[in-house]
């Protein structure tokens, strides 16, 4: 920051607030992490103490890796999240392009209709969705989850992306048309790279709720071979006995992949902002 315009007191205050917020936000994660390496007794007696030579234990991780097929759960969660994100971004961007680029009767109504999903939570329709999945034979498949999450993510994706696509230079698209590019080439080669920051935003917004969701996996795909990570971790939480070592270890491991995905998308976000645009 420009030293002439910065005031030491406000700088300190600003950083203080930010650091405080970071600590508050990271504290639960930190507690989960340290406790996942401790013995059961120590978790309850000194939940905030760091694991030391006496309390250190990998029993939670051992339980998790022994019981159930944890790598399969990982894989399921990953397939569902990545699959849903791909479909949300692809169809959301295409719908947004159509809405922002073409004038047709009912354009406005269509836009509002697509945005309706932002206001009405998809869980209201759970029973109907379950009915539908049963009659199409999709229950206990990953496709059931991917389709539902795609439907859940599309409204916001269309809403955000169409706003951004309106800002893409008309001249650029016109130039493409005059040079004989097809509408698909214009969409994929010219428009999409320019709205990449918005795509990354949409991806991050959708990724975390999908990864963490318990509701739909529990209802639509509870079978052993389609369990997601969040659902898989629930086996350690019983009505009478909860294996906290295992729960905390499972949660710690569940953080990693989503962290990796986030880093990938946020890179895109920054690169999109800094790469030169039209003018």
């Amino acid at each position, binding site marked *: 920051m420009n030293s002439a315009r910065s005031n030491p007191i406000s700088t300190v205050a600003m950083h203080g607030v930010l650091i405080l917020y970071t600590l508050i936000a990271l504290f639960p994660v930190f507690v989960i992490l340290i406790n996942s390496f401790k013995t059961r007794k120590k978790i309850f007696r000194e939940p905030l103490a760091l694991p030391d030579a006496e309390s250190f234990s990998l029993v939670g991780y051992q339980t998790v890796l022994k019981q159930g097929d944890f790598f399969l759960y990982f894989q399921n969660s990953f397939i569902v999240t990545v699959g849903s994100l791909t479909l949300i971004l692809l169809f959301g961007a295409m719908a947004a392009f159509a809405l922002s680029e073409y*004038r047709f009767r009912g354009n406005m109504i269509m836009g509002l209709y697509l945005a309706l999903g932002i206001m009405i939570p998809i869980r209201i329709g759970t029973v109907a969705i379950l009915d539908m999945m049963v009659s199409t034979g999709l229950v206990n498949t990953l496709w059931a989850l991917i389709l539902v999450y795609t439907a859940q993510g599309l409204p916001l994706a269309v809403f955000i992306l169409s706003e951004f696509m309106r800002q893409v*230079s008309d*001249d*650029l698209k*016109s*130039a*493409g*048309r*005059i*040079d*004989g*590019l097809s509408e698909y080439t214009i969409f994929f*080669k*010219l428009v999409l*790279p*320019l709205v990449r920051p918005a795509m990354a935003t949409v991806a991050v917004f959708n990724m975390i709720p999908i990864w963490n969701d318990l509701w739909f996996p529990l209802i639509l795909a509870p079978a052993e071979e389609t369990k997601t990570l969040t659902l898989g971790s629930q086996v350690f939480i019983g009505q009478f006995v909860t294996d906290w070592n295992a729960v905390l270890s499972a949660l710690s491991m569940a953080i990693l992949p989503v962290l990796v995905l986030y880093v990938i998308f946020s890179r895109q976000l920054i690169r999109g902002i800094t*790469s*030169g*645009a*039209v*003018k």
Partner: protein
Amino acid sequence: MTALTLTNVNKSFGNVHVLKDINIEVEEGEFVVFVGPSGCGKSTLLRTIAGLEDVTSGEVCIAGDVVNQTPPSKRGIAMVFQSYALYPHLNVRNNMALALKQAKESKETIEERVAEASRMLSLGDYLNRFPSELSGGQRQRVAIGRAIVRHPKLFLFDEPLSNLDAALRMNTRLEIANLHDQLGATMVYVTHDQTEAMTLADKIVVLRDGRVEQIGSPMELYNNPTNQFVAGFLGSPAMNFLPANLLEDGSPNTLGVRPEDLALDDAGPLEVTTKHVEQLGGDTNVIADCHGHQITVRLFGQHAINAGQHLRLGIADGKSYFFDAQGNRLS
């Protein structure tokens, strides 16, 4: 042969009637400029010629063929945009080559045409750069190069100089004029800047509210405007309009005089008070008040005139224009 014919072209967006019965003919090799204030429909007209917008009714003919149903890429046109509209993911060479690749031209033809265009526009050093690494003037040259390589029947320019600074604008203007001479191609150029229109055009089309006001060579329009709008739009500083009853009592008409047709004359008919003096060295512009109306006088050379001074002005013989209440010229 006519390069472009527009017959009764109309264009509406919903209830908004943007272009109203446009009839224009452009001869081969001509440089035609569409000029008008913003919102007059000149860019829309250009886009209908390019095929980026459909006409609501009427006919667009390019080189004798009706092209109403032809997509832009098959119309034999090339367009240069105000915002350059270069493809950000391609370097200069590929930006220019893209249209030819799409048209499935052979590698040798592409190579040759890109080389030819980059020689004409001295872009040789930049062929491997990306648009984000070029300055504004260079980007606009690339955009022009992208048009040249297609060897189009018709060049369309949509305010190509508006994003450039003043000095660069003048250079690029000259470059476009040179290009027109070298290529002998038909060019249609849209601008809101009357200087560009006057300096570049063989023929000017003045548009207002989606209607053609007048078509003619720059000097025809300057010397012989058919109405008050055209008279006021062309020429800088703009023509002065005063009530004609300052000269002849009781006249309801409007008098138009160009700033350079006014001169200091102690026996002149107009009595003014100077408000502001602009010394340009070669010219002196005097902005004065004439019975509550602002009037601009352009004097050649340097004059020692101060604000607040009272002056009498005369009008050069035969240089007064009269317009009726509807703005039509009275002969």
